[in-house]
């Protein structure tokens, strides 16, 4: 129990003291158990008060402090630092929110607000009395990173992590790096070929000897935690003899006559059973389709020196301090019959069209017929108000329009119809929309409730669409090819990845970050980060931005070799625990394990993994587990504090009270006020002038000058020439 407690109650320059009688409460609490000093202060966060608190802590040998001011979201760290600077453990400090949760919402009832504030602060005092001194948990971390997925996001992140001196293990499920972008010849908005970008990144990747790339590799098993993840990786063989001469492999490839469907070209073409995705695919070693060649005895004997169909999967064990998941997306695969897909031969998806464009250098031919009229149908498998994928994939409009521009550029005499719901070519991509409109592409808007109907009409395809912008007049379009503009969906194996690393999945099935704005690449699993389109639809620039942001976060984490973790975690009362396993069952992070202790089995918590969520605490039948800082004593004493009788002589006060604070002493002003008053120094100034002189944002200066004006610290004197701003000067 803490017995030398200091209590500081903040006026917040009137934000609190206008409604809550902080002075009376301060006096009342002086006699509470354990309270050594209790005072009201004008601004608890002001530098002068922070200094006073530090000297109080030292002078009165305080062992705990309570600050009653604003929300802990604002100044928790300010006062933790004060405690730290005074040599007091920051966990022996409690913040009580009497502004956002008392003076402001109850500004209509000042008397009752005072009573509530007293209860809240008393609860804080009782809670801090039970507080323990807890040290942060220090963990040694290995300066190695596992990057899962070698698309553009993963490759860029791997390069930066390696450049910063980390060991990098980059694993890719496919046999070749690059991912989806290798399938597109012309990327918006730069017009670059995806393959060139990948070749350039690969060359950079290879220039670092602290990057190890594994292709044909998947995550098999994950254990350990922040600092020391132990990851088993399964590497599938290429069935090429590692010692074989590359020329011999090339000869075997040339010699091979067995053909299989070419997945890279969505089955539009056939490829040899010894293949590369495309001629320049990297790493520059072909792969053998073992199943297709297994019966070709003669061929195998002939090339026995370089082909080895007996190669087996290999399991490698890697240790990494942190993990970056950049597994990317899948393109939405339309259901059979959706807009005639797979039912009519002339219906393809946008990624398929992009392959066709690359495969047809002169004329666009599909199913042996030239394509002249092409119709795009947008938002396929996306923005479904009733379906599974409610979100917008944000890059497909731009991608479709880019393909349309490319069609006009590459082939002559093409006509393009765009059947859209809304065009979302945000940012610079809007220029492509303008260009497409100018080149004569026809845009027809339809309503989700009345989607276009695709029908076969002899040799070509007929599309009926109700034009939303001409009072739903029905139009019929004859097209040689229908292109379904499909969006992004989460990868079909993302569930397995999520289970292995315990990354939460959202309702859209993509991986979830902690907070989209404030923690955009962090997951709730310490040390596991996400980047690129595995967290939601993104274009290439956005994917790289997010993966690089994750790379810098990871580097910052591993840089020092040790990581300091918040001590707010679960702990087990070894005497009471009889191991029933219920806590381990509910733990999302597998932080709880069974161990032997003396003659019995008990639960133990892995400090590096535990997030301190507390799920395990209520399920324990013998109440043997609790969260630090949220113990039974602490919570129950708070409840006691709320309910104890408040003996407060609240003065009947007017809700607007300006006089009582007019005599505030200078030393209690916050630093910014002092700066503002310093610049004025007898002269009169407008708010923009003050802002410029002290180099602080105008909005902030406005707020503070207004507050100072309210409390008669400054007064107005006339306006500037343009009559835009008031002049302020110091009140005499």
């Amino acid at each position, binding site marked *: 129990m803490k017995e030398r407690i200091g209590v500081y109650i903040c006026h917040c320059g009137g934000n609190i003291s206008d409604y809550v009688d902080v002075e009376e409460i301060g006096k009342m609490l002086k006699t509470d158990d354990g309270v050594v000093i209790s005072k009201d202060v004008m601004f608890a966060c002001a530098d002068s008060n922070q200094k006073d608190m530090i000297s109080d802590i030292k002078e009165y040998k305080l062992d705990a402090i309570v600050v009653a001011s604003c*929300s*802990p*979201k604002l100044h928790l760290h300010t006062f933790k630092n004060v405690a730290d600077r005074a040599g007091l453990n920051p966990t022996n400090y409690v913040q009580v*929110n009497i*502004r*956002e*949760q*008392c*003076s*402001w*919402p*109850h*500004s*209509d*009832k000042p008397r*009752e*607000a005072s*009573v*509530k504030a007293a*209860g*809240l602060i008393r*609860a804080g005092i009782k809670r801090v009395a039970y507080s323990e001194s807890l040290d942060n948990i220090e963990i040694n971390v290995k300066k190695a990173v596992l990057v899962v997925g070698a698309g553009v996001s993963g490759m860029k992140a791997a390069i930066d992590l390696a450049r910063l001196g980390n060991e990098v293990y980059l694993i890719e499920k496919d046999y070749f790096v690059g991912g989806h972008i290798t399938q597109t010849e012309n990327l918006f908005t730069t017009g670059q070929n995806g393959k060139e970008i990948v070749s350039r990144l690969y060359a950079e990747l290879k220039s670092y000897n602290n990057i190890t790339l594994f292709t044909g590799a998947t995550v098999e098993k994950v254990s350990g935690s922040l600092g020391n993840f132990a990851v088993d990786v399964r590497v599938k063989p290429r069935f090429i003899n590692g010692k074989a001469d590359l020329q011999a492999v090339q000869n075997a490839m040339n010699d091979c006559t067995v053909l299989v469907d070419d997945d890279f070209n969505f089955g539009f073409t056939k490829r040899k059973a010894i293949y590369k995705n495309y001629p320049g695919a990297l790493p520059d070693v072909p792969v053998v389709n073992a199943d297709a060649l297994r019966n070709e005895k003669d061929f195998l004997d002939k090339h026995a020196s370089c082909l080895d169909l007996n190669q087996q999967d290999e399991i490698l064990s890697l240790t990494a301090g942190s993990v970056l998941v950049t597994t990317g997306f899948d393109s939405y695969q339309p259901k059979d019959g959706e807009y005639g897909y797979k039912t009519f031969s002339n219906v393809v998806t946008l990624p398929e069209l992009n392959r066709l464009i690359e495969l047809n250098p002169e004329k666009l031919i599909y199913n042996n017929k030239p394509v002249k009229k092409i119709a795009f149908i947008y938002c396929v498998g996306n923005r479904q108000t009733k379906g599974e994928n409610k979100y917008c994939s944000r890059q497909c409009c731009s991608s479709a329009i880019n393909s349309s521009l490319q069609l006009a550029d590459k082939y002559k005499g093409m006509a393009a119809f765009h059947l859209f719901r809304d065009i979302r070519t945000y940012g610079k991509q809007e220029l492509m929309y303008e260009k497409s409109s100018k080149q004569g592409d026809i845009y027809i808007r339809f309503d989700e409730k009345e989607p276009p109907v695709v029908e076969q009409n002899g040799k070509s395809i007929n599309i009926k669409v109700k034009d939303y912008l001409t009072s739903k007049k029905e139009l019929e379009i004859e097209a040689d090819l229908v292109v379904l503009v499909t969006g992004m969906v989460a990868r079909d194996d993302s569930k397995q990845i999520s289970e292995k690393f315990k990354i*939460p*999945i959202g*309702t859209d099935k993509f991986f*979830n970050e*902690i*907070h989209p704005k404030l923690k955009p690449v962090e997951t*709730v699993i310490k040390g596991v980060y996400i980047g690129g389109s595995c967290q939601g639809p993104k274009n290439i620039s956005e994917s790289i931005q997010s993966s690089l942001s994750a790379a810098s976060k990871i580097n910052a984490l591993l840089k020092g070799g040790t990581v300091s973790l918040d001590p*707010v975690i679960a702990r087990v009362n070894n005497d009471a625990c009889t191991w029933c396993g219920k806590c381990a069952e*509910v733990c*999302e992070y597998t932080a709880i394990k069974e161990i032997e202790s003396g003659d019995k089995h008990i639960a133990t918590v892995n400090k590096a993994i535990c*997030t*301190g*969520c*507390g*799920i395990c*605490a*209520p*399920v324990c039948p013998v*109440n043997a587990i609790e*969260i630090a800082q*949220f113990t*039974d004593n602490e*919570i*129950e004493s*708070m*409840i*006691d504090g*709320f*309910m104890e009788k408040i003996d407060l002589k609240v003065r009947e006060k007017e809700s607007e009270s300006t006089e009582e604070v007019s005599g505030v002493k200078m030393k209690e002003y916050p630093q910014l006020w002092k700066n503002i008053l310093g610049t004025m120094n007898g002269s009169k100034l407008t708010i923009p002038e003050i802002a410029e002189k002290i180099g602080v944002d105008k909005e902030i200066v406005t707020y503070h000058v207004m507050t100072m004006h309210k409390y008669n610290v400054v007064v107005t004197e006339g306006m500037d020439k343009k009559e835009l701003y008031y002049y302020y000067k110091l009140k005499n």
Partner: protein
Amino acid sequence: MEKEIFKPKILVFSTDKISDPGIDQAGLRKIHYSPSVYTISLPCSSGIKPKWIMHAFEKGFDGVFIAADGHECSYSPKCAEYTNKIILEAQLMMKEKNISPKRIRMAAICSVCAEPFSNHMDNFGKILSELGKIGEDKQIAE
């Protein structure tokens, strides 16, 4: 009229990352609710122990409100399920002590749910006013 004077005391359990900021929002925007509402913020609503709820009733709180994260919880997708279990367990304990199960309520409060929070407090306050002070619950038939 006694009922007009009676202002039910409500204990709210909120969560650090989501519902507590939502309650802060109500203050920030000066949306009023009863000053007999007291809040304790925890990491996650699934960590509330039924014995804390019982302690609150014993000490004189008239109702307990759980401002949960619902599907937004960043700790566990099963957060709502676990929190529900805690409430059911607490209600069993309440039944033994003759406390109406209506005195405990849960709703998902998001980080900007200022109005919904204040509405919940008003509605819950009305329900508790009808029930009367804690300890005045009649023998529960069911």
